[in-house]
Structures are given as C-alpha cells and as structure tokens.
C-alpha cells in the first residue's frame, strides 16, 4: 500500500517537474506570468480599503482578517491549479475521448490525468498567499496550519471540480455546469461569510462548500479550535473519496474517440 502511494507520489512529482522544465524554456514569460498574477491579486486590496473606509467591520472581520481570507483564497486556488490544473478541464478530455493516454498506463488514471499539467500563474497565487500571510502576522504556531489549510483547501477545490467535470461521463454540455460550479467557489471565497445570511449561508456550507475551503480555515487561523481543523480535514478526505468514486463510476461509461495523442 505504502509502496503504491510512494510510486504515485513520484509520478506526480515527475509530472510537475517536467511541466515546470517545459514552462521554464521561456523564462521571461514564466516569471512575468508569476509577477503579474501577484500584481493582479494585489489590486483587489484597493477594493477592501474602499469598503473599510465605509464601514470598519466587514461581517465581523477587520481589514487584516479579510486580507487573510484573500490570502487563503489565493493559496487554495494556487495549490489546486498548480498541482491539479487538469481537474478543471477534465470534462474536455472526457468529451473528446482523450483519456486513453492515461488509461493505457499502469498508473492511477485520475491522478495521472489531473496532474498532467501545471498552471504557472497559480505559482503567483501561492506567492501572493504567503505575502498576505506574512503581512497578517507570522507565527511558528500558525504557519504550518496555514500551509496545511491551503493544501486541504486546494484538494477540496480540485475534488469539487473533478465531481462536476465527471458529470460529462453521463451528460452532454455538463462542462458548463462545472464552469458555473467552479466560479461559484472562487467568487464566494473572496468575500467574508458575515455579509451573507439565511439560505445563502446554509448553501455555503453544503452545496457550495466554500465554508469548508475558506471560512472555517479563516476561523481556525484567527482563533484556533481543534474541532474546526478536524472538520476541515474530514470534509477534505470525504470530498477526495467522493471525487474518486464518481470519477471511476463514470469511467465505466467512457468511450474512446480513437484519437491519436501522446503525453509530451
């Protein structure tokens, strides 16, 4: 079991390594992508400066705490898109019958498929996330937790995307549903939960699980409570298993398009 996990981890490591090498062929583009993404994320700080000039409390959070929410949102997004970029375009591969390349390999199909590409700008998101964390306030206690929460958030985000994209095994045009679902997660993640109420708040902790990806982690970082961290981890593991189950259930319906393709 452990050997199998090690082998899969090595595959992901090599996949990312080669993707990085490929991207680094054009260093100017590589670094400008990262730099501009940091700049792009930083621009949204202006929005919060304006909003806090109107009201000094945003849904129970102060400016630094909302900034930390942005950091978490960027960190989870960065982890999901850097390590598992293809989980966001899985339906495209399913519809066009391009999963063959992964099916014929004696490796985990889902892992190979989602980790077969990286998003360079996502590195900018991760860097931005750490900059924001250091502005919020570095501490030996919270730093490992922050990293852990970015990883679990990224895994949850990818899992949700896999679940939604896997609908393409059964329905046509479900890529649109996946796009909407993914944009729901991203858009809600950058606004504090305190501004929402009633049904919306309930939805954010159920159908659109942004609450578990960003809101609970924010509460953990502001005021550490072990049970909240455990909820985060349990939901993360549940979503991973659910994504795995749905993908493999759908894979039985998959039919190849006899498209010649190669992993480069």
């Amino acid at each position, binding site marked *: 079991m452990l050997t199998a996990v090690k082998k899969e981890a090595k595959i992901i490591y090599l996949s990312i390594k080669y993707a990085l090498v490929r991207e680094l062929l*054009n260093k*100017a*583009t590589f670094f*400008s*992508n990262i*730099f*501009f*993404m940091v*700049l*792009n994320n930083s*621009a*949204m700080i*202006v*929005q919060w400066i*304006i*909003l806090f000039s*109107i*009201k000094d409390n*945003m*849904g129970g959070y102060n400016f630094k705490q909302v900034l930390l929410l942005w950091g978490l949102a960027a960190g989870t997004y960065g982890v999901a898109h850097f390590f598992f970029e293809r989980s966001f375009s899985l339906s495209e591969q399913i519809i066009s019958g391009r999963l063959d390349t992964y099916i014929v390999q004696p490796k985990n199909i889902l892992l190979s498929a989602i980790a077969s590409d990286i998003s360079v*700008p996502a590195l900018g998101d991760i860097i931005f996330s750490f900059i924001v964390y250091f502005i919020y306030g570095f501490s030996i206690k919270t730093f490992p937790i922050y990293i852990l929460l970015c990883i679990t958030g990224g895994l949850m985000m990818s899992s949700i995307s896999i679940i939604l994209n896997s609908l393409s095994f059964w329905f046509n*045009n479900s890529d*649109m549903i996946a*796009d*909407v679902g993914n*944009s*729901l997660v991203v*858009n*809600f993640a950058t*606004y504090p939960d*305190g*501004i*929402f*109420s009633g049904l*919306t708040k309930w939805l954010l902790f159920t159908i659109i699980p942004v609450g578990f990806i960003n809101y609970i982690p924010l509460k953990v970082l502001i005021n550490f409570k072990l049970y909240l961290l455990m909820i985060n981890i349990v939901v993360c593991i549940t979503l991973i298993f659910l994504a795995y189950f749905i993908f493999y259930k759908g894979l039985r319906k998959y039919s190849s398009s006899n498209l010649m393709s190669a992993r480069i």
Partner: protein
Amino acid sequence: MRKYLFIMKSQIMTNLQYVFNIAFSFIGYLIMLFILFNLWKYLYSDPSQLINGYTMKQMTWYVIITEILWMTLGGRKLCRKISNDVKSGNITYNINKPYNYIGYSLSCHLGDILIKGVIFTILGMVTGFVFLGSFPKLSILSIIVVILTSILATTISILLITSLGLISFFIEDAGPFYWVYSKIILVLGTIFPIEYFPTVLQKILNYSPVYVVSYGPAKLFVDFSWDKAISVIIAQIIYVAITYGICSFIYKKGVKRINVNGG
C-alpha cells in the same frame, strides 16, 4: 464599411446557434451580482442612506450595468484569440485579405458579443427589478443615450484589449497584461463609481479609460443628466480615435516582425 458589417453579421448568425449556452453563462453574472447585492445590503444599514452620493438602489443598478458591460465583453477570449493569432502565425491569413485587421477584429468581436449583450441586458434588467422593485427614472431619449454610450464603451474596450493582444508581437504572452488591465477596470470602474475614490484619484480617473468604458454608461443609467451625457460621449469619441490609433501603430510595428515558417 459594408464588408465589416458583413463580418459582424456572420458572427451574429453563428452565435444565434448557441443562444442556450449564452443564456446559461448568465448564471456566472447572477452569482457576482448576488454577492455584490449582499455586500451593498450589508454596507447600507438604511436603504435611503447616501454613501458618496449614491443610494443603495443606485449602487446596485450601477453594478448591474457595469457588470453587464464587463461580462458581455469577453475580454479574456478576445485577448487570447489575438495573442494566439500572432503567436501561431494565423495573423498572416488576414494580411492578404482586403480589409484592415483592426477593423476586422473589432467587427468580428462586436458580432460575437451582440447576442450575449442583448440577452444579458434583458436578464440583467429583470434581475435588477426582482432585487430592487423599480427601475431608475429614464425617458426614452435618455435610454437611447445610455445604449449609445454602452456601445461606444464596448468599442473602446475591444480596441484596448486588441492593443494588449497585439503586444504578443513583442512579448510572447500578452495574458498577464490583460489580467492587470481587467483588475484595474474591475476595481476602479466596475465595483465602485469614481466618486468613491479620493479626490486626487478622481481627477485622474475622469481622464482614464475607466470613465469611458464603465463609469460613463452606468452613471447615466442611475443618474441621467444631459451635461454628463455630452461629456461622456465626447470623451468616448476621443478615446475611440486614440485607441484605434494605438492599435494601428502596434499592428504596423509588429507585423514587420512576422516570421512564419511553413503553412
């Protein structure tokens, strides 16, 4: 001019095949609107309260209009298309055609987004009415002026994004330039009206693209005045000329650098 209208018409005909997809993409707009509606509801403790000269209803309508303009535009797609045309060498297919590339790109994209614009406007108005219960008071003539300024705003946006895409002649990936541009427009023009910013910044923004591509039409929709309408239209005409000039300049400089192998 007729050839550009023909290009536009064929794009409209193509897009008519995907009306359902366009209507479905409205959900993304609705999500954003819903979040911002919640945000403004939270900030305005009393709906009749004035913040920087805007009531809650005016602020919500402002965002509805700016988001319609922004979401209809499809700027990322346009920038990527032009950038890819340059990088892949596809742009050479346009060089020997009897039209101007900038004119082609503008008419093609306008045709591409026209149906989306109409659908988003109708659905946006219905959504606004459901959220707020009333429309801003506008005469038929002022509605026409708002539509005209919206078309001019979209034209300027397309030309600005085209110039960003054409940067690919010099730097391989124009995407990052578009991200920064989009964030500037989003933060400084879409979410907040110019009046929300410090006085010094307001003076700069009044001369910036923000004024003509998002603030102008939205401001006229929520608080129409003829003085404002004339100043917006004049500024937009000047901007159309400037952005077209910039696009042509970059294209002329860049096209000399084309080096295509094979075909």
